[in-house]
């Protein structure tokens, strides 16, 4: 019993330290990754836009390559939305914790 009570403050201290480190350094790994993924998704959308414009202008882009680019962008966006949903869900779970 005494052991567990002594162990608890230690664990608490560790958690507090890790939260502080993510809060202080604004560019934590996770958010950097997320930002990178989002810019990649955006890049796919730019690619798709360029391909569709190229196809419509008749500058040599094939119909299928335009459609594939659009599909890629669509799937990447869908993926991003799912990741976002998961993050929001996790946030809500934590914010609704009862103390």
């Amino acid at each position, binding site marked *: 019993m005494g052991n567990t009570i002594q162990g608890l403050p230690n664990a608490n201290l560790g958690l507090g330290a890790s939260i502080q480190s993510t809060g202080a350094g604004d560019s934590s790994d996770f958010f950097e990754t997320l930002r990178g993924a989002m810019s990649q998704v955006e890049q796919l959308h730019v690619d798709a836009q360029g391909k569709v414009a190229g196809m419509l202008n008749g500058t040599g882009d*094939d119909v*299928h*390559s335009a459609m*594939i680019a659009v*599909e*890629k962008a669509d*799937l990447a966006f*869908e*993926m991003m939305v*799912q*990741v976002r*949903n*998961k993050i929001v869900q996790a946030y809500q779970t934590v914010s609704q914790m009862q103390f």
Partner: protein
Amino acid sequence: MNLFGMFQISGSALRAERERAELAASNLANAETTRTVEGGPYRRQDIVFASRPSLPSGFAITLASFTDLHAQGVQVAGVVQDNAPPARRFDPGHPDADATGYVDFPNINPVEESVNLMEAARSYQFNVSAVQATKAMIQSAIGIAQS
């Protein structure tokens, strides 16, 4: 390779099949052509396909040889001319007739070209199905996150 690599492979096949259909259409369109830039009647053209790694650069190919990436796209290796002798038809009124009244027409069989065209169109459909299958695979993978 990620799943988008499948898009690249199918895309290369779609492009190749489109070029094949273009050649078949060109052969059909020029079945009666007696004048070309090179002189003489139009010559039937055929397409040659070659497989290639879907990753374009030399470094990527080397890298792929160290990993287990065996999937390959397709590319058009070249266009070959059919050197079959032209079909000679007697038509003295034709402006391109020679002294004996015969005209050199391209040796093109429209039925054969139609079959080529149908084949190209079917292959195109198969590859479109592959793209749709890829899309379905990715969507079901994304569906893992949905509960």
